[in-house]
């Protein structure tokens, strides 16, 4: 159990440091940084005090603490996948708009230069 706690703690601190670096170089906003830090801090709490998950389970009526942690993890993963999908979709759409704009401008410039050379 101690080895697991140490390994998890190292991983959590590594994850928080990555989030901090992204926050520092402004690729992650303050809300995003707060959210990620909270998630990882919560994971750390669950590892060091497993009873905490039982308290949540009792409060939410989910039975065992492990069930509550499992359900929360699934909800979080789904949410993150959804966010990623939206982000990728936005980038994809912006890329298409850029390609369309470029191709139109390229042709207009080509026609202008052809007319000038005539």
């Amino acid at each position, binding site marked *: 159990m101690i080895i697991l706690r140490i390994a998890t703690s190292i991983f959590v601190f590594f994850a928080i440091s990555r989030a901090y670096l992204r926050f520092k170089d402004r690729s992650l906003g303050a809300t995003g940084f707060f959210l990620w830090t909270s998630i990882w801090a919560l994971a750390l709490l669950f590892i060091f005090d497993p009873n905490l998950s039982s308290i949540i389970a009792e409060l939410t009526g989910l039975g065992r603490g492990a069930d509550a942690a499992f359900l929360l993890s699934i909800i979080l993963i789904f949410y993150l996948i959804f966010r990623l999908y939206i982000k990728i979709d936005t980038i994809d*759409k912006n*890329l*298409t708009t850029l*390609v*369309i704009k470029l*191709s*139109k401008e390229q*042709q207009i410039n080509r026609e202008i230069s052809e007319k000038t050379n005539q």
Partner: protein
Amino acid sequence: MEKTSKKIYVVIPAYNEETGIASVISHLKDFGYENILVVNDGSNDHTEEKAREAGAEVLNQIINRGQGAALRTGIEYLREVYAPDIIVTFDADGQHQAKDIAAIIKPLIEEKFDIVLGSRFLNKKSNAPLLRKIVLKAGIIFTNLISNIKLTDTHNGFRALGEKAIQKINISHRGMEHASDIIDEITKNKLRYKEVPVEIIYTDYSRAKGQRTSGFAKMGIKILIKKLIQ
């Protein structure tokens, strides 16, 4: 081509079509359609050169973005530069027949429709393979259900857009799903639409180039996800 004062443009999205693009262009020219715009969708062969040599104007997309994006490029460019009365969308693989253009633009000129859609199922001329026919029919039921419209062929790339459709239609999907976008735009903008029978000729070349039958399921999922997010 019948005589008309309308400015008619044909837009052809093309990706790696060096083998067939020149014959498609000359086929259109034989029928009197001189205003041809090819949107070269990031091809890595000689599609651009072949299309220029055949006498079409060519727009180049620097990377492949899909048929929907290529059509959007073509329609936007024509709208901004030439202000056409009619835009015909035509495939680059030789499936569509230039002889059908007269029938597809007629309702725009004479009957005050905003958009005319070609249908391969209104007559029995098209030689669609059985599996393709089944998948297309399933696609028609699916699209009619989610788009609240009644059409006999929802994924036919052969269409004619009148002035209102040229101004209003906004293609948001970059791939083959753009066909559903166009149908959604018809309902959203209350465009007056009509279907006319067209002949689609399936050849080994067009089957190799065209949308794979398995791709239709993927397309359906994409359309559903878009509907869920919006």
